């Protein structure tokens, strides 16, 4: 172990950190929005819509993220329909493809967490809210949402960590984020152990901060009984 190489690789590796964080933040945000729609589709009561959402979730959760990334980047580009469509300028870019694949992936896992959270609210509470004459919007805002949020937060926190780790797969389609930068540096310095350990330490640090943040949020939600109650 050459400690000078280990510590010396941090500045170069950290220069690629913004790309990793950008990939994570954008795909988590887009994925969350899609996850809400998917969860709504599954709980909509419309059989065709629910079946479609179920199939989507099943396919995404049953296949490796790497296969999804390659499918979006290499696979779709082969189709003439894609090449001739207005979407081609987007799907031609590796960065956009990584974002799309990551967002589609986290949406499937996220929708299951949201669905589980919503279903965890006891029926009796919703009936009681109805008996009190609360409107559907009020029922959701004051009864269902705060409790569902409390139930889904720990699982969603785990999903955020998985997503942050998942951004490393963007390096397989030429994007130089943290892992991609580590590969380049490892081959330049001939010191893969030191460089990959340094990159691992950065990911670990990010995830420790992330899980600490989620735990703080959990504590806040527990104490106040949810954000919706504060307004």
């Amino acid at each position, binding site marked *: 172990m050459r400690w000078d190489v280990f510590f010396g690789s941090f500045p170069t590796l950290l220069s690629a950190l913004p790309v990793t964080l950008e990939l994570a933040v954008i795909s988590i945000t887009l994925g969350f929005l899609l996850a809400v729609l998917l969860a709504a589709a599954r709980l909509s009561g419309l059989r065709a819509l629910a079946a479609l959402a179920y199939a989507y979730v099943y396919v995404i*959760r*049953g*296949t490796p993220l790497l*296969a999804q990334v390659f499918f979006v980047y*290499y696979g779709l580009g082969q*189709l003439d329909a894609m090449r001739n469509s207005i979407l081609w300028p987007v799907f031609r870019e590796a960065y956009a493809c990584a974002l799309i694949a990551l967002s589609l992936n986290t949406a499937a896992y996220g929708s299951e967490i949201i669905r589980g959270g919503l279903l965890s609210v006891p029926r009796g509470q919703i009936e009681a809210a109805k008996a009190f004459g609360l409107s559907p919007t009020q029922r959701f805002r004051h009864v269902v949402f705060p409790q569902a949020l409390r139930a889904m937060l720990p699982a969603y926190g785990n999903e955020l960590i998985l997503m942050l780790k998942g951004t490393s797969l963007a390096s397989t389609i030429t994007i130089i984020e943290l*892992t991609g930068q580590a590969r380049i540096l490892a081959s330049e310095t001939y010191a*893969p152990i030191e460089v990959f350990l340094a990159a691992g330490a950065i*990911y670990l640090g990010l995830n*420790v901060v992330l899980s600490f943040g989620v735990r703080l949020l959990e504590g806040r939600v527990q104490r106040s009984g949810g954000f919706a109650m504060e307004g």
Partner: protein
Amino acid sequence: MNPLHLLAFGPTGWGDELAYGAAMTLVIAALGFAGGLVLGLPIAAARLSSNVVLRAISGVYVTVVRGVPELLVIYLLFFGGGQFYRYVADALGYSGAVAADAFSAGVLAVILICAAYSAEVFRGAFQAIPKGQIEAANAFGMTRSTLFCRIKLPQMLRYALPSIANVWQLVLKDTALVSVTGLVELMRTIDVAAGSTRSPFLFYMTAILIFLAFTAVSNKAFEGAERHFSRSVIGGYGK
């Protein structure tokens, strides 16, 4: 020409290559899963032990492995393995070429990852065993090893089974990442086929379908296992 010809078996298609790759993926996943479970059990025991040092080491191991991208673990073992062998070769005075072998690096990576996740599953399952049962076993005068083999282990396995099924799915999917080392498993075969035939859509779609089939079959198998191990439990699975 029908593009599905590319998937035919024999010298004209990629069918047999894909079958070989799929078999290799299953072998890596099975070895990694088995090794990971075997290693996961003592790690879980260390996590629950009263010894502070054991608890700290196992806790750090689980946090580190789960907090670092799987791809990075594979790179570290594959490229770092070569560097490690180089040190050993230099120390022994051998100056010829040495390289890490992709297969053992891949399997080892899957074992290390699977161990961290399954250790957490085992830990949770041990903790789910009602305290009264252990007190009852002590009251019967059971020795520690009898208590472990007859009370703790069988129940722990039943509690752990649903989550272990998830770990298997994770392992199966992580195996695809081993393709970055150039090891010819399913994903690598797909990459080569997609590139050389210029039909990436067909081949990546095929990869997705093969993985889906693996997932569907293993889901069914684990469901059957859960039913089997819960058969003597009142109010258990499916009752």
